């Protein structure tokens, strides 16, 4: 019997494969494809204090082995999420991690407070890294002191496990990681999208309405693996690795680099069944390699 279960930030998951925030809505869309209870955990769409309309279209641009987006955190607001989405998603036997985002420290604190004690919520993922909103978002994730302040604020307002989702758009990822660890983060998610741009050469205009957007998909995977490896050596708290995972092999790479769990993001668009294929693929690979416990893989990269 192979053990696929791991524990991240005190959240026990039956397997290490989660779905990344912003790529999975609140689960409803993909519930039409498979039983969501099969997943390790679900990180739901970025939730803000007030409902947000998001950016105007075009919001997507395809790039080689990836895509750029500038959705701009369109969501119904935390109260609607608590009332409509969490109770619905709670019918499944899967930990729900709510990704939250704010314009200010106060907003982060208020959202965390409202979600504290809501039945079905297993943890909070703190988005201090969204590149697509004008105020807040990325700004909080690129400066160690500000990142730490956000984490301290939500820790103060919530008893839930706190996962800091970091931006790769920084000079030294380990500085930010160490800062959020010191501020009390229980785990780290990385990476969020890389800031990118695409231009339509016929019209000579940017493809995205927001001019720049966040790059995700397999194109960013080497950057993500590198950052997971760097951060894993710099902090003691667990890491949820994400960035371009579409196959079991991709996921195993992240585990070897030091991630305790992984999340499938843009991979859901590539193949709606991708998370299940990753779970099955990991299991088959462990059997083939005669590895009884997935935890043996975490950080097992060999550096001579």
């Amino acid at each position, binding site marked *: 019997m192979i053990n696929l279960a791991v524990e991240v930030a005190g959240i026990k998951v039956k397997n290490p494969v989660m779905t990344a925030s912003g790529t999975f809505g609140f689960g409803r869309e993909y519930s039409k*494809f498979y039983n969501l209870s099969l997943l390790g955990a679900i990180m739901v769409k970025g939730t803000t204090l007030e409902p947000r309309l998001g950016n105007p279209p075009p*919001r997507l641009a*395809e790039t080689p082995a990836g*895509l750029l987006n500038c959705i701009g955190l369109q969501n119904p607001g935390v109260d609607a999420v608590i009332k409509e989405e969490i109770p619905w998603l709670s019918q499944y036997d899967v930990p729900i991690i709510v990704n939250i985002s704010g314009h200010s420290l106060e907003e982060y604190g208020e959202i965390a407070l409202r979600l504290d004690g809501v039945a079905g919520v297993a943890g909070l993922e703190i988005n201090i890294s969204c590149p697509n909103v004008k105020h807040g978002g990325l700004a909080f994730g690129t400066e160690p002191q500000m990142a730490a302040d956000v984490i301290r604020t939500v820790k103060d307002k919530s008893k839930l496990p706190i996962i800091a989702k970091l931006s790769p758009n920084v000079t030294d990822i380990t500085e930010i990681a160490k800062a959020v660890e010191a501020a009390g983060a229980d785990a780290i998610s990385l990476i969020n999208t890389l800031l990118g741009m695409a231009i339509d050469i016929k019209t000579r205009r940017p493809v995205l309405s927001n001019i720049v957007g966040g790059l995700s998909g397999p194109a960013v995977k080497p950057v993500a693996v590198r950052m997971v490896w760097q951060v894993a050596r710099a902090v003691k708290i667990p890491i949820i690795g994400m960035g371009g995972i*579409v196959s079991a092999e991709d996921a195993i790479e992240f585990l070897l680099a030091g991630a305790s769990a992984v999340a499938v993001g843009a991979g859901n668009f*590539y193949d*709606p069944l991708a998370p299940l294929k990753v779970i099955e693929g990991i299991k088959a690979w462990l059997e083939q390699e005669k590895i009884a416990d997935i935890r043996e893989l975490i950080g097992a990269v060999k550096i001579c």
Partner: protein
Amino acid sequence: MVRRGRDLLMVYSLKTRILENKKILPDFYEMVLSAPAIAAEAVPGQFLMVKTSPTLVPFLRRPISLSRINAEEGTITLVYQVVGSGTKLMTVMTPGSEIEVVGPLGKGFTWSVKDKVVAIVGGGCGIAPLVALTEELLKAGKEVYALLGAQSRDKLLSDKYFIELGAKVMIATDDGSFGRKGFVTQLLEEVINTTRLDQVYCCGPLPMTKAVVKLTKEALVPCQVSLEERMGCGVGACLGCVCKVRSEEGSLTYKKVCHDGPVFTSSEVIFDD
């Protein structure tokens, strides 16, 4: 109103066999798939997300509307225009091989038993999904005016199908190489002036759609429009393909073209100029 495009309980993600894949016009291809499960459930106006390559490039699937739905034979026909790398890869796929699709997706066209005389207005690639719609409308006993437009004769899609099906076909080309010289909207204007239409269905380029919405609004004829937007997931999760709509309370909001559409009532959609 018969709501045909319903919220699906299950969506299929499967491999289908290609039965035919042939060029029908310089930039247009017709692909017939054996997909009984999808054909049994699909309604006109819905679409599939098609995986165009076994590799990671292109990364996203392509949304392709259903041009014909044959539930009895278990087949669906996709008519696609070659516009980029994904659709170009589709052109070299051979009959007998497999292609991965997700669907049927989105909300399709609707019709009411009360409607007697209807018009479909199609331009360019937008004509494709109107074939399946016309088939259903004629089966339901409607009198159908099929108003078709293209830049020129060699870019006019599926006109023969509409004639075979028994629609009253009127054609306009920009260069006058076939049918009337001018825009398809001029044909609609004529029909509106001479016939009492109960419903108009529209699919085509944005300027055409805007003109059709304006004409039908002035004539007080209900109109449904099929919209196009860049899609990521095709199922409503990524929020990439939104369009601006007026909510029931009158405020502006975004709806997802893939999930809440692609077919919308013209009164709810807001076009920015």
